[in-house]
């Protein structure tokens, strides 16, 4: 229960931060990505501010096995840089560059009741569905189907 409340609080504060930073505004995100146009460097400072604060917290939990609420620390440990990571991130970047919206801002936009935000969110969830479908197919069909005798 405590963890669920903390989770809501973290999501809520995250959303406030996106709004304050102007990052829930796709036009501002696109102005950062437009290096050859009238460039708005704000997003770089958003990242710098977030990383400066986040780095301390991650250093604090790094060697702990339990959080302050007693929950297990479940931070990812893989370090491998593979094709899947890079190709996936490139595909994400193309989508991000098309609309100026990434997953966090998509949820904040939906909360503002923006019809365009909701359209993006619906498509993003559908994209999730495509991923789950392809992954499931890979798990269920590891090799060719067995031959049948007539």
């Amino acid at each position: 229960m405590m963890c669920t409340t903390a989770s809501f609080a973290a999501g809520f504060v995250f959303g406030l931060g996106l709004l304050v930073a102007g990052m829930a505004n796709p036009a501002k995100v696109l102005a950062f990505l437009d290096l050859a146009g009238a460039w708005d460097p704000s997003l770089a400072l958003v990242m710098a501010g977030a990383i400066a604060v986040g780095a301390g917290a991650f250093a604090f939990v790094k060697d702990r096995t339990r959080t302050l609420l007693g929950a297990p620390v479940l931070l990812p440990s893989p370090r491998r840089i593979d094709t899947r990571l890079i190709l996936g991130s490139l595909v994400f970047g193309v989508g991000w560059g098309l609309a100026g919206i990434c997953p966090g801002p998509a949820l904040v936009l939906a909360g503002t009741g923006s019809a365009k935000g909701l359209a993006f969110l619906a498509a993003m969830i559908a994209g999730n569905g495509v991923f789950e479908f392809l992954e499931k197919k890979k798990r269920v069909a590891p090799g060719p189907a067995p031959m049948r005798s007539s």
Partner: protein
Amino acid sequence: MSIAWNAFTPASALIGGAIIGAAAALFAVLNGRIAGVSGILGGLARPQAGDLSWRIAFVAGLVAAPLVWAFLAALPEIRVDSSYPALVAAGLLVGIGTRYGGGCTSGHGVCGVSRASPRSIAATVAFMAAGFATVFVARHLIAP
């Protein structure tokens, strides 16, 4: 490159960024997890007992932020210029790409870089480069 000084908002960017960092810090210190929105949302597609409530709560918090904000004050400027077909294509690419890439701007960009994870730094460089390239093609090659 020319900096749009009239659009540049260094103070609110730094403060907003610090608030985002505080949210990620809160989540790490209390819940022991990465505040990565694509992963939290994606986990809802594979429901497992005991794994749902914190995910739903985080997503609800993100959606509630603008609702509470709008109740107390006017929301900051939000402009979506993209057409619906472009938004749908973008949403699909973001949905698929973040899952294969195992993270997005929050999980890799904020949390992963904060932890100096080589994987997340590589992912962040990749999605930033693709974002810059896409906007360049869309704004300066296709529709200059």
